[in-house]
């Protein structure tokens, strides 16, 4: 079969390039597209974008939502930055994020690797790993709050008592409160990430493991030299997601300790909540929204920096 070479100077077949007028948009089914998008646009608009815009507006106003608001420029931002509790909250949030990273980031990966090696009952292990995610977060926290009772008759203290470990204060002591929160948060969140890693692990070509085996690699070496590099993309994504998620932690400090004892578990989002709602007479919505805007800006900058820095490393 010979291919017919195109003469070098023949013009490309003329394509009918129609002008994009409203009529062509309509005829092309544009109205249908719009109608299909309408519910999503409405819902996102009302529940997501409008509140964001409203919050940004409120951050430059002084308002109690009852009387008319007055514009105060950057005063709210200044007063938030001058609040001594802000630095406590930032420090605590950083501490939570660090602990969650150290404890909660490797754990799902280890679990996923272990579960992928198992031959039988894989489904049961996956279900068990995911079960804590299915428990409603508030229910989980309230259960753990009960388990964390500081007396020697508390559930955890009783169990640890069987193996001779003294009663721990858990939430009742400033130094053990944050780790207790991280423990519960890890238990509740690991399952989802395990499932993601399990799926990612199936995409690692088996020949790589075989080749490593042939080269005499131990299990750990295989993990380090084959698994981790192959999962790079997923790992980078889950890392940034975890950082962003833990920077916004609210539920655990709010329900476990309300920021105590003595503000040792006060996080940025809990501080925002306290600004807005802790005062029964109407809170400082300006400060709350100002801090929210600042948090969003910091996380956005962090994400941009992160993706720039890791662009060369990630597989995409």
């Amino acid at each position: 079969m010979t291919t017919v070479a195109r003469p070098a100077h023949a013009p490309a077949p003329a394509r009918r390039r129609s002008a994009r007028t409203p009529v062509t948009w309509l005829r092309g089914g544009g109205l249908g597209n719009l109608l299909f998008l309408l519910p999503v646009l409405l819902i996102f608009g009302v529940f997501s974008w409008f509140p964001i815009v409203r919050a940004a507006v409120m951050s430059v106003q002084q308002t109690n939502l009852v009387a008319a608001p007055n514009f105060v420029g950057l005063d709210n931002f200044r007063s938030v930055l001058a609040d001594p509790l802000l630095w406590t909250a930032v420090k605590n949030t950083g501490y939570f994020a660090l602990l969650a990273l150290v404890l909660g980031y490797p754990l799902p990966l280890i679990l996923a690797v272990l579960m992928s090696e198992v031959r039988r009952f894989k489904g049961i292990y996956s279900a068990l790993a995911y079960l804590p995610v299915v428990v409603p977060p508030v229910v989980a926290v309230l259960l753990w709050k009960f388990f964390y009772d500081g007396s020697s008759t508390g559930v955890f203290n009783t169990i640890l008592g069987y193996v001779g470990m003294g009663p721990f204060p858990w939430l009742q002591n400033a130094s053990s409160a944050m780790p207790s929160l991280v423990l519960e948060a890890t238990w509740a969140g690991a399952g989802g990430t395990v499932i993601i890693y399990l799926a990612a692990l199936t995409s690692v070509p088996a020949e790589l493991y075989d080749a490593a085996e042939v080269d005499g690699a131990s299990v750990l070496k295989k993990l380090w030299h084959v698994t981790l590099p192959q999962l790079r993309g997923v790992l980078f994504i889950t890392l940034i997601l975890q950082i962003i998620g833990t920077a916004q932690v609210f539920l655990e400090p709010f329900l476990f300790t309300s920021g105590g004892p003595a503000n040792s578990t006060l996080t940025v989002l809990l501080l925002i909540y306290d600004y807005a709602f802790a005062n029964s007479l109407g809170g400082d919505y300006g400060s709350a929204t100002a801090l929210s805007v600042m948090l969003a800006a910091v996380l956005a900058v962090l994400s941009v920096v992160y993706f720039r820095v890791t662009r060369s490393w990630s597989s995409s």
Partner: protein
Amino acid sequence: MRSTRKRAMLAMTSVAALGLLAACGSGSPGSNATSDGSGGSQVTLKVVSLKPGSEDSAFKAFDAQVAQFEEANPDIKIESEEYEWTGPTFAAQLAGGTLPDVFTIPFTDGKTLIENGQLADLDASFKKLPYADKFNPNVLQAGKGEDGKVYGIPYAAYGIGLQYNRTLFTQAGLNPDKPPTTWAEVRADAKAIADKTGQAGYATMSQSNTGGWQLTVATYARGGRVQTMNGAKATATLDNAGTKAALEYLKKLRWDDNSMGSNFLYDWGSINQAFAAGQIGMYTGGSDVYTSLVTSNAISSKDYGLTTLPLEGKDAGVLGGGTLAAVNAKAADKVKDAAVRWIDFYYMKKLTNQDAAVLDAKTLSEAKQPVGTPSLPIFDQATYDTSLTWIKDYINIPTAQVKTFNDKIFGQPLVDEPGRSTQELYAALDTVVQAVLTDKNADIDALLTRANTDVQALLDKP
């Protein structure tokens, strides 16, 4: 393919159109809360009824009372809704304009709401009430604005008392009919309870601004004050001797005697729960908390004991509190008049009218609600005592167990809560209380100085 797409488009359009119609047509239940009712002379009045989750029989009794009122006042139509005052939801309802015309608020927030112009001026209608001049002036003060006019009508008042668990007392070898009368005795009893029963002998609230509230109670009981007013200027005095003494006391009980158990993060709800469960020997709280202990925490009545706070030192007093019935400032004049008539009928009558008192007590006791919970008189002691005799057949609380409180409370001077930035002041003290209870090396002086500086900065804000 085209026709399927067209059909889909049609379906979507009709769904969207129906949705929009439904949203527009349902009307807005909240925004017209304060308009006059339809019809010529009938006024619609939105009032609060009972706490959500109250017994059905309680609601039926309420509806019966509404019917009685409507019969006696044919020009008023009552619409009621369940209501419970909690800080965040109240602020949101206030901001959203969905508060009913008549609602109830604690004394703590009364002054600020009046200053913010959120409560209606009831002075004219109030003066027409037959008992307007019989109010205890200290109590009526809580509902008055700085111009001396009445914006909220107090209908319930309480003083802080020392709640104690009689069963734990007995188990610890103490006499439950002889509760402690000095702070030293409280300390000794707490140690006995902790040693003999393993439960916390003494506990205090520490979270959600209740820590600061109870620390203020302890301060007043030792003669201190956390805030002083000089004309319009407020000065924070958190580092006064009374507060220091109260914190030193907590430190000794916690770290030297180990009589405060192992859990220290308590707010109003959780400390009541722990007390009703028999985990706490003694704590300070409002004298009216028995009602909540019965209805929310299923306390066994034989466990409950109430006595007065030990007062030590010059200027020592008992922190008092109470509830105001108030009217939304946006209400029209006709609605305001109707509102005062409703307040008179539902909240006040049982304090001054025998039939109303008996009916109310009967309804409550049939619904297994506590009747006769210790409280403070709104008018004078004589009226209060008389009203108790009216309902004495229905009183179902263990009166003998609260006798020491009822006997002594009227002799104790009542002190108001700090008036400015109360919530923020309490929040600052929360941190101090939590620090003292959870950190053995907490420096009380440094903590108080810091809290004082923070609160003073708030008070100085224009």
